[in-house]
């Protein structure tokens, strides 16, 4: 019986996550527009778009992998969201988070991206490789500081379970990893910017250069799936970072607030900086955040 | 008598060494060959003094005779002069 409850909760989390993710996307567009002095679309524009896409009647397919790619994407998104505990030790909202989950999450995050890249390439679009390769290269960039902070935290707390990490950060704001291990956190948060492919690390999605990126060839239902996957994935990552650095959450409100703060952090940063080229981004990640993170890392190593 | 013989031997030895040096130093191959033949000849006399008549005979016949002959023929055939 237990498993069915879990499935039920999972469905709720996924739908909730989707709704939240779409909302965040809308807010992001709004903020950007406002900063640029435009009115911008409605914050609910993404909901409208999604419904529109689903309702479209025809879709084209270039082949099996093209067909499967959105599935992978969606699966990756859902997987990440479900593997991180939104509220630790809560039957409903701890999701499928379990003992070894940090490493699993790290690897599962790639799953969707891989599917995405494969699908795009299968379209036969000559530029299809551009975005995935940039993305992978940039990933190699930001993953280094990110792994640094994750490993640092795991060693520091002697656990790779996100739930345990969250538990270790309870008992006041100063117990948060953000304050316990500020340098690691800085490295991790900078990596997060890369992970969201926001400015200045947006060369992957760069619409001006690659028409509209991987989704160029996708439309209607396929695109809707991608859209869904991306939104959910985004939320999943916010939750992950919340759990890692901001002490997790004990109730839903706290979760909303913390993820929203993270979201704002990304949005504001991205509206300030110009874009890096891939190699610049990689070099950036391999220097400043890494060096900063190493301070704490070595501290943990010595301890 | 014995003393004279000894001095004679000494003389022969010096002669041999001188001939050897001459054979090595001279530019004319034929002279060198003849000199080396002479060394053998002188040596055979020395052998006699050293109570080795057999060897003396052999040295004279083969060392001084045949060897020199072979040398001479070779020098003639190679029209040899040392540079």
């Amino acid at each position: 019986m237990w498993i069915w409850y879990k499935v039920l909760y999972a469905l709720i989390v996924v739908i909730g996550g989707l709704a939240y993710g779409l909302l965040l996307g809308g807010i992001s567009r709004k903020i950007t527009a406002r900063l640029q002095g435009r009115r911008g679309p409605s914050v609910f524009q993404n909901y409208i778009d999604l419904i529109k896409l689903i309702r479209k009647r025809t879709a084209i397919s270039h082949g099996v992998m093209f067909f499967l790619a959105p599935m992978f994407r969606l699966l990756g998104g859902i997987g990440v969201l479900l593997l991180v505990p939104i509220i630790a030790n809560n039957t409903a909202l701890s999701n499928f988070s379990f003992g070894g989950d940090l490493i699993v999450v790290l690897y599962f995050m790639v799953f969707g991206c891989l599917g995405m890249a494969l699908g795009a390439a299968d379209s036969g679009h000559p530029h299809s490789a551009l975005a995935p390769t940039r993305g992978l290269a940039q990933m190699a960039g930001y993953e280094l500081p990110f792994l640094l902070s994750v490993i640092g935290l795991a060693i520091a707390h002697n656990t790779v379970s996100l739930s345990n990490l969250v538990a270790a950060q309870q008992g006041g704001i100063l117990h948060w990893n953000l304050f316990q291990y500020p340098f690691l956190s800085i490295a991790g948060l900078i990596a997060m910017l890369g992970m969201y492919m926001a400015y200045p690390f947006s060369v992957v999605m760069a619409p001006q250069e690659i028409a509209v990126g991987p989704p160029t060839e996708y439309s209607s239902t396929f695109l809707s799936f991608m859209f869904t996957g991306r939104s959910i994935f985004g939320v999943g990552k916010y939750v992950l970072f919340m759990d890692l650095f901001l002490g997790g959450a004990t109730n839903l409100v706290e979760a909303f607030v913390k993820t929203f703060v993270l979201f704002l952090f990304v949005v504001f940063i991205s509206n300030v900086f110009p874009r890096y080229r891939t190699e610049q981004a990689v070099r950036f990640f391999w220097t400043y955040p890494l060096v900063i993170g190493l301070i704490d890392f070595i501290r943990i190593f010595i301890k | 008598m014995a003393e004279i013989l000894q001095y004679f031997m000494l003389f022969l030895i010096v002669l041999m060494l001188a001939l050897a040096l001459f054979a090595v130093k001279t530019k004319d191959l034929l002279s060198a060959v003849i000199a080396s033949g002479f060394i053998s000849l002188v040596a055979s006399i020395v052998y006699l003094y050293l109570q080795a008549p057999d060897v003396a005979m052999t040295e004279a016949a083969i060392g001084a005779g045949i060897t020199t002959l072979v040398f001479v023929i070779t020098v003639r055939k190679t029209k040899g002069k040392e540079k």
Partner: protein
Amino acid sequence: MVFFAASLLLIFIGLYAALVKRNLIKIIIGLSIMDTGVNMLIISLGFVKGRTAPIISLKDLFKKGSLLVDVSKVVDPLPQALVLTAIVIGVAVTAMALSVVIRMYSVKKSIEIDDFKELKW
């Protein structure tokens, strides 16, 4: 002693020729001088002062009443026998060497070492 020294000198003069001279025939002359030196050295090794050659043609070399020869009256015959062989071998080698030289001359019209340095490294 003089014989030793002289023989050694002969050997080394011969060797010197083999080491320094650039003419093939000269080198062989050197070797044959060296041979002579060696032979003389060996003979002088077998020499014993005041003894006679090892040819027993007189009765008084025998020990009394037998065919056993009195050792103290004869020089060492063995080195002489060895030298006999050595001399013959020497002439054989010289003849071989000289025939090679004749052939070398017919190939290159030269008997200088400088023309025979193709095999190297």
